């Protein structure tokens, strides 16, 4: 398998304290997935954030020290891991155990002893669901015309900023207000452009509008939409040149 094809296989994190179970999962699923393993709850939390994020976590419930429920609960409290689907592997088939697992954020259960075909199918189902949800979320945060971050994305960023998550942006009200003002301009101008029928006129207007805004954005350090905005300006300018030619 070449490196590109290998890269396209989803990365799984499999967590189990029993070596036979880990061997089963890591060797039985290796044709369809890339595998990262951890043999304890503590190591699972490290492995979930080390380098590339896993697309899904297969988590044993009963482990010495930190059990699967606690691992899942902690994963769901961290912004960088809370959206990773977790499937529990358990020999406990009672309703209370399942309810507890779902309550801490698991998406599914696999019963021991594991059936590889069923396990593979369930994992793929949840990875596809997650990818579709991510695609929808991305679409809801980008302006369809320009491809730059839209109002919703801006509001979310701003909320995180206010919560202090993006400390690098600074915390001053002045910065916040400047960002709000600039985004409102972007939004109103791109909205106007949407109604125009003449594509050349539309492109020229948008390029001018974006060029006008770019210096304002440049003054604000680390605004995360800035690279997107610059890319949009470049694209629009290319479009205008082509139309004029």
């Amino acid at each position, binding site marked *: 398998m070449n490196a590109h094809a290998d890269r396209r296989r989803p990365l799984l994190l499999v967590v189990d304290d029993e*070596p*036979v179970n880990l061997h089963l999962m890591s060797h039985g699923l290796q044709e369809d997935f890339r595998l990262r393993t951890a043999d304890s709850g503590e190591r699972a939390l490290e492995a979930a954030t080390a380098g590339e994020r896993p697309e899904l976590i297969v988590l044993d419930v009963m482990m*010495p020290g930190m059990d699967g429920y606690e691992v899942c609960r902690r994963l769901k409290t961290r912004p960088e891991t809370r959206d990773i689907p977790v499937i529990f592997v358990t020999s406990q088939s009672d309703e209370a155990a399942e309810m507890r697992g779902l309550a801490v954020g698991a998406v599914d259960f696999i019963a*021991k*002893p594991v059936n590889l075909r069923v396990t593979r199918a369930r994992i793929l189902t949840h990875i596809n669901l997650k990818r579709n949800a991510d695609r929808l979320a991305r679409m809801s945060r980008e302006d369809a015309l320009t491809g730059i971050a839209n109002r919703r994305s801006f509001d979310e960023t701003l909320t995180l900023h206010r919560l202090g998550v993006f400390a690098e942006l600074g915390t001053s009200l002045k910065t916040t207000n400047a960002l709000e003002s600039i985004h409102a301009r972007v939004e109103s101008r791109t909205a106007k452009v949407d109604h125009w029928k003449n594509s050349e006129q539309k492109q020229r207007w948008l390029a001018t509008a974006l060029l006008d805004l770019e210096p304002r954005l440049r003054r604000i350090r680390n605004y995360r939409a800035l690279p997107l905005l610059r890319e949009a300006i470049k694209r629009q300018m290319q479009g205008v040149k082509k139309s004029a030619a």
Partner: protein
Amino acid sequence: MAGAAPIMMMNTTRSNSPLHDARPGFDVAGALDRLGGNIPLLHDLMCRFVREHADSADDVDALVAARKPAHAVAALHRLKGAARIVGAVALASAAQRAEDLLMTGDAAGLADFRGALDAACVQCRSITRA
């Protein structure tokens, strides 16, 4: 249908495999079915099982002697899961009984578990050497 060939090869291999001989206390067919007919993987798992758990009865005894019944129950639970994977159903049942006995404070039933573990390891070695 690129995936069809390996499955046919596996089935051909399967009919000549010692895995299909009757093994007391084992459900090899069930284990193999759960692994999608992957005989080399079942062999690997059996080798791994023996390596990891051949001395587990001593470990459980030591935990009971050290008055750590919860740890002993956890060790039995882990072994039971591994036994089910390789199809050692008699051992899995013996481990479950030992778990139940330990939870009621009775360590006398561990002798059965030790016998079942030894028998399962003998079978695994026999299958993987054949």
